[in-house]
């Protein structure tokens, strides 16, 4: 026997279940209770940079869209700074960088508007390509899944991104890269997340 290190253990995760909306998006569950729901406005009114829309679905191992999924997104501003004391620099007043998105109950489609993030500081040296950090919970998902979304019009930055380059199977990097199109003059990026099977999205143990 030896001494006890006396660290506590992290509380175990449990699924968010099918009624996650009651707690985190009560309007979608069918009732109004709070003065304001959180996570609807990622950027605030003062954010600089390109306004973009991101849309997609989360698809299960049968190829069916998940209609009760909740995603959270965490991103830097256009200068590559996070709204946090250790975020690298100042952000615009009202810029939060965090959003909470739910899928449509009928189609499984979700979308949100934000600004395109800038390059962020790498872990030790260098820079990371522009990306959004995603966290995905739903019924049947026992512990939230972490992934990242990159942009297909950042070819050069993506090629030197330290995280994409960690993925040994180069063809799997493509699962993290959203496809740009244009709608009414606005850039729209399509990011379908495949939970399982062919073209399974890369998930990270962060």
């Amino acid at each position, binding site marked *: 026997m030896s001494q006890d290190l006396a*660290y506590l253990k*992290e509380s175990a995760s449990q699924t968010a279940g099918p009624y996650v909306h009651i707690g985190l998006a009560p309007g979608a569950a069918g009732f109004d209770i709070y003065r304001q729901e959180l996570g609807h406005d990622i950027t605030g009114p003062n954010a600089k940079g390109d306004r973009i829309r991101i849309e997609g679905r989360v698809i299960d*191992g049968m190829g069916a869209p998940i209609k009760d999924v909740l995603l959270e997104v*965490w991103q830097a501003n256009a200068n590559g700074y996070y709204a946090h004391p250790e975020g690298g620099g100042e952000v615009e007043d009202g810029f939060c960088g965090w959003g909470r998105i739910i899928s449509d109950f009928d189609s499984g489609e979700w979308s949100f508007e934000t600004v395109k993030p800038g390059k962020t500081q790498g872990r030790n040296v260098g820079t990371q390509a522009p990306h959004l950090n995603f966290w995905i919970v739903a019924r049947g998902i026992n512990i939230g899944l972490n992934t990242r979304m990159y942009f297909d019009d950042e070819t050069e930055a993506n090629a030197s991104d330290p995280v994409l380059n960690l993925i040994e199977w180069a063809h799997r990097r493509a699962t993290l890269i959203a496809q740009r199109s244009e709608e009414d003059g606005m850039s729209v990026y399509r990011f379908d997340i495949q939970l*399982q099977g062919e073209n399974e999205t890369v998930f990270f143990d962060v």
Partner: protein
Amino acid sequence: MTQPGEFYQRNRSVHPTALTPDYKTSVARSPRYSMISLQNSVSEITGPRFGHGDIDAGDNDLLTNYAKADESPIGERIILHGRVLDENARPVPNTLVEIWQANAGGRYRHKKDTYLAPIDPNFGGCGRTLSDENGYFYFRTVKPGAYPWRNMVNNWRPAHIHVSVFGSGFVQRLITQCYFEGDPLIPICPIVQTIPDADAIDQLTAKLDLNATVPLDSIAYKFDIVLRGRRSTLFENRLEGN
């Protein structure tokens, strides 16, 4: 000189794996490939922050936050209280804690819930609060009822309250469920049993806390939440000890 550094690696032995076939929905919703391990960068160490401007003072009182004036929900009145700590046993202050639950009869106020137990007109079923400078939080609510679900033919969820917590970095993000001491449904629930470690299940089971009850008013349960801990420093690209 020390600075806060990266978070401790998540101890996956206390968490459910993705694929837990007795909880049937997990079968098609679990990745088959291994996760890619990622050392923390600024993207992982930082996370959203919330303040008192984001929520209202009464948001943590489920006895009143959806009830008509001078009415209250039917059920066992409880106080759910505890602290948000990290693995170093340090308090996590000013962090957002959100809860949701069924009413006393096990019915959720959700348009997709069709269970025949009735809605309580005075109960919404959600609450939120910020932990104080010592990591302490509390809610007032009614104890939720057990709830049947379509998994195996005759599965019932134990009484539970869903709990969502943030911490200071996005990789501390956690959703879990709080169970209640002595509930015989706990050991036979396929969702509880996705957790491989019996001690980790006990850690999700709130204990009756008679000292915190309000006599002749509400009974209390204590529920501490532990988030991932953080190393002390990352100094000149070299990890210092904690």
